């Protein structure tokens, strides 16, 4: 899980993983898993296919760790680059978005009023986000779901950081318009 490994510990874990330390690999896997799975689920319908993609990406990472260079983009960007290719392979080279709606964060606890309002807003945001085009979603997925900085997202997409920032700004502009439509529609 994200909180179990502090970001400053990642370089050391990567160094140990490079030396074949299975426990370091496991720690990296557990740390990245929720975001990797959420990213894969956005692109592959059905939970199993997304899980398989994440598992395959990790196996490829193990085999390719000797090609990873820590300078430049970080380990996460490298990992998402691998996962992106695995997902594209699973899609048969065609880009398509999951037909599933954007999943909600599951929470069965009773909701106070302010939390309920937040949940409503989150629902409207998810609905608006689901209506964005695939290019917009891909940029925002890397920034928001994967949590990558613009430079690392650019590395994953094979673009320049400035181009990614521009694309992100345009995507957010479109999202804002869609969100207004969603809220005006009484969501």
């Amino acid at each position, binding site marked *: 899980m994200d909180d179990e490994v502090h970001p400053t510990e990642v370089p050391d874990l990567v160094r140990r993983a490079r030396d074949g330390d299975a426990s370091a690999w496991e720690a990296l896997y557990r740390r990245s898993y929720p975001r990797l799975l959420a990213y894969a689920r956005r692109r592959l319908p059905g939970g199993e296919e997304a899980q398989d993609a*994440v598992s395959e990406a990790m196996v490829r990472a193990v085999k390719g760790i000797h090609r990873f260079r820590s300078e430049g983009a970080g380990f996460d960007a490298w990992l998402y680059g691998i996962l992106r290719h695995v997902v594209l392979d699973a899609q048969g080279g065609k880009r398509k978005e999951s037909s599933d709606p954007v999943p909600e964060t599951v929470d069965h606890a009773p909701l106070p009023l302010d939390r309920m309002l937040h949940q409503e807003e989150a629902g409207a945001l998810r609905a608006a*986000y689901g209506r964005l085009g695939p290019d917009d979603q891909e940029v925002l997925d890397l920034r928001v779901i994967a949590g990558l900085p613009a430079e690392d997202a650019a590395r994953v997409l094979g673009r320049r950081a400035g181009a990614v920032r521009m694309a992100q700004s345009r995507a957010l502009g479109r999202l804002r318009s869609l969100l207004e439509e969603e809220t005006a529609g009484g969501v």
Partner: protein
Amino acid sequence: MASEDEDLLRRLEHALRPEEVEPSEAEIAALHRAVAEDATTPAVRRVWPRRALAGVAAAAVLTVIVSGAPMPRPVRAAAHALGLPVDSVKVADAKSAVNELQRALDDGDEERAARASARLRQRLEALGEGDRQRIGRRSDPLLQRAGALRGSQPAPEGPPPGAPAPRGPVPSRPPTTSPSTNRSSTTTSTTARTATTRGTTSSTSR
């Protein structure tokens, strides 16, 4: 990034926050298997191929440099790109043309000198300013000598160094100026002029 963009990103992050999930036992087991399999791959095989290839390539280039043998163009291009102390292909070509012209002039062979002059001019044009000046110190006197050699023949006047060679048929006449042209005949002079213009744009052909 505009603050409204930052705000929307934060809200989006909250709305799309990933579920707190962990990999299954099967997934962890698959990872451990991959790590174990990778550990059985000898590290030497993973790391050495590129380094070994680069080392072998550098050794081969150095061997050629030390032996003084002519270096194939691809090897020279690769060595130059690697930063080894060899001339670029263009500089090497220009130097080769200078040597060729020198030999032709030493032999007093007007036809060869004319061909070599034309080739040398072409290769000088392909060089950057610095290389051209550096090689020009040696090539300019040779081109002048070649021009004088040609000028002593039926052509009305010899071109200045670096200028295009004379074009078109020229009536033959006896040698007049340079003593170095005494061995040339009018027949070879015409052939030489034709060869000299090879590689330059002929105004008559336009």
